[in-house]
């Protein structure tokens, strides 16, 4: 059971990594416009 003392913080740390990735995605604007990108492929350029 002593492994918990080590594993709980590790698991939490892993989770935080994904939260940070999510924050980066939000700041890059990936969630700003959920309507256009799927249509963009249809534009000719």
């Amino acid at each position, binding site marked *: *059971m002593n492994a*918990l*003392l080590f594993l*709980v*913080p590790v698991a*939490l740390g892993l*989770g*935080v990594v*994904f*939260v940070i990735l*999510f*924050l980066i995605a*939000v*700041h890059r*604007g990936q*969630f*700003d*416009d959920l*309507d*256009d990108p799927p*249509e963009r492929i*249809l*534009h*000719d*350029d």
Partner: protein
Amino acid sequence: MTVRCAHCGTAVESDRDDGEVFCCAGCRVASELIRDAGAAEEYYARRAEYAPRPTAEAKGWESVEVERTPRGTSRARIQVDGLRCASCVWVTERVLGAVQGVELAEVSYASGRATLEWEPGRTDLSELAGRVSALGYRPRVLGESAPADRALLVRLGVATFAAMNLMLLSAALYAGWFGGMAPRFVALFEWTSLVLATPVALWAATPFYRGAWTGLRAGVLHMDLPIAIAVSVLYGHGVVSTVTGSGDPYFDSLGMLVALLLTGRVLEARGRERASGAARALAATLPSEARRLGVDGHTETVPVGVLVPGDRVAVGAGEEVPADGTVLAGGAAVRTSVLTGEADPEAVGEGDPVFAGTVVERGSLTLAVEAAGNATLVSEMAEELERATDRAPRTAGSDRLAPWFTGATLTVATATAWVWTALAGWNAALAPTIAVLVVACPCALALARPLGAAAGLGAAARRGLFIRSGDSLLDLAAVDLVVLDKTGTLTLGAPDVIAARDDTIRVASALERWSAHPVARAIVAEAIRRGIPLPDAQAVVETPGTGVTGRVDGATWRLEAGDSGEVRLGGPGSAAGTIRLGDRVRSDSRAAVETLRSIGMEVVLLTGDHPEVARRIAEEVGVNVAGARVRPDQKAEWIRDRIDEGRVVLFAGDGLNDGPALAAASVGVAMGTGAAGAVLAADGVVGVPSLRPLAAGLRAAGAARRTVGRSRIRSVIYNVVAVALAAVGWVNPLVAAVLMPASSLLVVAGAMSVERSVRADDSAATGGSAQAADAEPLGRAA
């Protein structure tokens, strides 16, 4: 020969070519003034640099919020109106991208928002906006640099992450409370929970603190206040019990509460953003350019923004009318569906008024501009729409409960503290007082509405009615008056051939084969439906507003408008005859109306069409006519009057012109087959070409509203019981571990019962009167 005006460059006919030719007296005077001032050489050489760029200036571009990016560039978002298609977006992006110093130019077609990023110093926002307006689109200040919901989304992400992990840790702690757990693991789990709960309470929940504070300063007890109190008390209590190692911290309740409430906020913010696009969709129907006639009869292409009353503009077949005005010359068939919603084009001739946004289908017009830009009828409609969608948010039911709830909790807490202090001293009073505030956490109460509404939204959506927000859904439950538009709502919305002989159709379809006119399309479609091979036609001539002639099978035929709802084919053979056209009633409209009646709705028809046609259609589907030949703004007014009388009105329509009525109604529902603008202005959309989802949606809304009511009663009962227990000091971790999730689970279970109860109603309804009455096709007046 043709020479250029020496001042303005307009081409003019003249036999002189000495640089002294002017197109008009005005240019001559201007040129003389410049020459008298001794500035002619300088002016004519360099005037392009001084020429005002069309419109973008003086619009307060400096007030736009400009963001600094980590790369050292500036970023801002502006709104671009008038984008009509993917190529508008393409052109705008290319032109902006080519400007020196621009790093990024991205334009969203759906929202009309442009995200611009540039190197400061090399260009600026007013220059970029100037480029956009030089293309003929209309840039305007948006007043925000990032979508409003970005910050909320970040809070939601952090809160959800923390809440999930807190649940996990708390489940272990609760299990340990029953089965025993080594103290150091309890400490580990509690301290980890504290680490997770801290950002949730101190940062993610700040919108609720802010809301509570704003409400307090305004003297209102907002629903945010009990939430803010609960969050801070839960957190404070959790910190104390973790640090002292006594008691249960209840961090899981804190995490779930904040995460679920933030989810609701994010969904709300997204809905609002979409609604604000509604007015833009209307404005986007205006053309961006006009062909203006000069005094000498030459035309020049100008942005619509520069048109002023008195200008003369030319409009050809297939073009949109750029401004309101009167026809000076020419004749045409004009489709006015943007204003009236009626599919039949209207014949206009000299002296008739025409309106911006309408489309010339056949023929051409010269018109004198009477109102341009924001003064046009269609712009006024857009403005009306914008005002209507900006209406103040409705007072949510839980907000009406909030003051009562907060007041009661604080009173009981104060009473508890006072009684315990009196009986046993303030030291003993602390624990039960905090327990009261903790168990009074309005989790279940705050969840009742969003969960019940979400279940109702799902149930309605599975039956073809997509409602945009939970508030609208709960409003839908109170509806007692259903107002229907005619064209496209009760009917199919496009002319259809009702009666004609095969040989007539054969010849007519040959003549109409290449025309985009709705009547032509109906005739060609009918030929295809009947399996008639389309013959070739030669020498086809379309005469504006009157008809088509051409040679088929060696004979000359003429197809022209006959009596109302008819076209007549004239020619030498037996094929000569008439084709009757009409707007068919949807085959299940009558059944849908009957179902609506059976659940207690009053159903009426409100249309822009002729009273006679309205009466016939109404008779066919079994509704009353509330009004015919009603203008869009009058529809909205009629609906507002009913609302003032205390009715709750559902309006269903399909046209862009229905926008004001859709926005004015308590709940506006657009037919998904209609114009995009109507969809944007509506609170909901019917996703299938039928009116049946309306009744199903109304039943789902009713079930959701009943569930929300029940959940609220349950959560109030829970709170009363729990607070009573806490006040007498009987709350321990066991009670809390059972009661807190139980109350939330009851709310969830209630929400899940919505679908079940709607399904029961469905079978009751179909067992009743819902046979589809196949409607007789009906002719319509022009």
